[in-house]
């Protein structure tokens, strides 16, 4: 128990330091930016104030629009979450089977074109893919699946949600990364004694390899995608007019809205660390040996 507590305390302290580090970096960069804007050139004192605001969770208001940062960020966060979690799900949905197939020698001849296809889709510039999808869908179905689908009634809500998620999930290099990881890990695992032994016992490869080969790298990958889940996909959000965090962060940088950006970074750091902790706990349970 105490070991657990010690771990948690260590994590909290580390997160604390990390937040300070990230905020400091952003603060520094912002003060060097060209152009006249509020908040430029202020010194250490304002940095301290900033930290205090962050840690008391009173985020204040946006310098540019005067609106409460809370009411800006949380809706955007919710929107981004829908987009990125959905996209991650789609990526996994496609990538995991392909990865598994590639690893098993028997499927190699069939899986190769599939994994090639997945790489092709991953290598298309994301916004081009988005435009292409929009063009085809709008010309063929008469609907334009943009986030704000409707003023007067026609249009498909389903498509408007589905398509950006699809585009983000398939594009953006995610599938190819996951396929690669799974193939490599699975390959490695198949070669171990553990699996050889279980095959000798007559169990199917999948069942025995599944426990180690897939779940662990999968868990790692999913949790490593946390910054992506937060930061969102700037590009897809612009094309599909999705009011998410990525677009917010982009706009804030151009507008020099430092408070908003720092809060976004703060959230990002928090989530990453939480993700790390969760992942370590999960891995601990899945595989005590490799913890």
């Amino acid at each position, binding site marked *: 128990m105490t070991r657990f507590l010690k771990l948690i305390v260590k994590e909290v302290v580390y997160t604390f330091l990390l937040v300070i580090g990230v905020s400091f970096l952003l603060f520094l960069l912002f003060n060097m930016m060209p152009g006249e804007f509020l908040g430029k050139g202020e010194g250490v004192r304002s940095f301290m104030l900033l930290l205090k605001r962050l840690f008391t969770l009173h985020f204040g208001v946006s310098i540019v*629009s005067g609106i409460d940062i809370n009411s800006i960020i949380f809706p955007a966060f919710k929107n981004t979450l829908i987009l990125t979690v959905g996209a991650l799900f789609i990526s996994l949905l496609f990538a995991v089977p392909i990865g598994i197939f590639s690893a098993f020698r028997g499927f190699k001849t069939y899986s190769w074109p599939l994994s090639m296809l997945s790489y092709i889709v991953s290598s298309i510039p994301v916004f081009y893919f988005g435009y292409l999808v929009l063009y085809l869908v709008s010309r063929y179905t008469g609907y334009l699946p943009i986030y704000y689908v409707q003023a007067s009634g026609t*249009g498909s809500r389903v498509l408007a949600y589905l398509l950006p998620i699809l585009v983000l999930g398939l594009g953006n290099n995610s599938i190819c990364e996951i396929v690669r990881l799974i193939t490599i890990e699975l390959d490695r695992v198949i070669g171990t004694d553990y699996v050889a032994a279980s095959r000798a016992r007559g169990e199917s490869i999948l069942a025995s390899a599944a426990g180690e080969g897939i779940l662990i790298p999968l868990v790692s990958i999913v949790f490593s995608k946390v910054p992506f889940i937060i930061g969102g996909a700037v590009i897809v959000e612009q094309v599909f007019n999705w009011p998410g965090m990525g677009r917010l962060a982009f706009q804030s940088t151009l507008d020099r809205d430092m408070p908003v950006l720092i809060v976004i970074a703060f959230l990002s750091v928090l989530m990453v660390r939480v993700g790390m902790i969760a992942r370590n706990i999960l891995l601990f349970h899945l595989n005590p040996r490799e913890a």
Partner: protein
Amino acid sequence: MKQFKRTVFFSAVFILIALCAAPILFSQEPGGTLVYGEYGAPTRLVPILANDSISIRLIELIYGSLVYYDPDGEIKGDLAKSWDIAKDLKTVTFYLRDDVRWHPMPGESDGELFTADDVVKTYKIMMHPNTITSLQSRYNFIASVKKIDDYTVMFKLKKPVLNVLGRFSFKILPAYLLRGVSYLRGDEDLSIYKHPIGTGPYMFVSQKGPSSEIVLKAYDAYHLGRPFIDTIIMRPFADQNIITQTLLYGGIDMEIRVPPRDIAEIQGDSRFELNPYSTLSFSFFGYNLRNPVLAIKEVRQAISYAINRQEMLDSFFEGKGQLISGPFAPGSWAYNLDVKPIVYSVDKANSLLDRAGFTEWTKGIRKRGSYELRFEMVVPISKENETTKRVILAFQNYLQKVGIQVDIKWLEWKAWTEAVFIDHKFDIIYADWIFDDSFDISSLFHSREIGIGKNNFGAYRNPEVDALLDEANTTLDMEKKRTIYRQLHAILAEDVPYTYLWTLTNYAAYNRKVRRVEIHPTRFFTYVREWYIQRGGG
């Protein structure tokens, strides 16, 4: 016989009903929602602080001012019901309406009464030195303001001003929500930043964050008559191409500014209407006369001759605009039709450069001694980059043919502003100026406007122009002012501190169900009270 009578009777009834119905069918009906799309998002919905077009359009819906111009150019009262200009022309007194209420706060049913306090407070905040705004130079013809009683305000001017009434177009803020505030910087924690309250035709309902849509509702107690359209929603877009597509597929009802390349597609679609409006602006190439080579008039003139403006206008903007010969929009009273735009002539350009002494050629660039015809053009990376890029690259190409090399330096928007207006580190820029109705170009070309943050970024100095500008600003005779401006037009065309390019015609596109649309050139929604949505198809 009975049959006949019955027929006559029913026909009569029918005709009577039809006659009554007709006006109903074709008259303005209340109700409906107008969704319009903008490229970009507003900065903030507070007058004085907000300077960008998107915010200004929304502010036009939410806030009111003392007076405004109607479509025929007549001054009409908005918050003021009448006014008095003293004989010495240095005092203007406004008699305010007593039936105006500020929009109610959420949860309340009635808003506060609008009084003279609001006008005084707004003016004081606007002119406070700590307030971050560019409006101060526009209103410093006013010496002081005094509240005479709850519904009377008196402005004393520093000296008489021509057409002074039209200058009182600033939006009024609610004093009761600004108690204890003397100036606005933008980072205060004020309720009006989160929930704007105004006296305009529409009330702010919600905005869930800067990239989300803004919802406005018609204000029932609007003193000039409740607008017909119930709800107006503004949708910000991050991608310009998507806006037009969204319009075509019914996602929005109106697009404020259609990019030239999309005009053809909308024109061909009978469901939509294209409404041209001009914005009292012009585009130009500006020169930094601090550069000794650019200070030579022949060089600037040569550049003007070397570019084919008509070709650029036709190819990049589908010809939707007009070439100009001076710093005014062609439709305005100041434009001198006798001054002709510079014709495209490569020969003339070459001969001018030869005359200026740039006769040696090395590597395709002209030289005179140690001075090369090589300039740095600084361009902002802005959102509307398609036509900008094309103009700039075409410019570079035209100049290359006469031996001038232009190096393009791309900077992010704020960095560009700093380079042009503060550091003055540039040779050429491509930009446009947007004017309000008074067309005051003195801040662009007067020598006292040279300096950090001021509009005469090119350091153009001409005592004759200075004198004429000063005279134009003090004269009270409209005809005289017109004559002076025509003279200025001729001089500035000859001197080319800028190469004047064109004034573009903007097009708004909207679904035909929106009727009676009259668009104000700079503020767009000034006449929105008359717009209505036709029900039942269309």
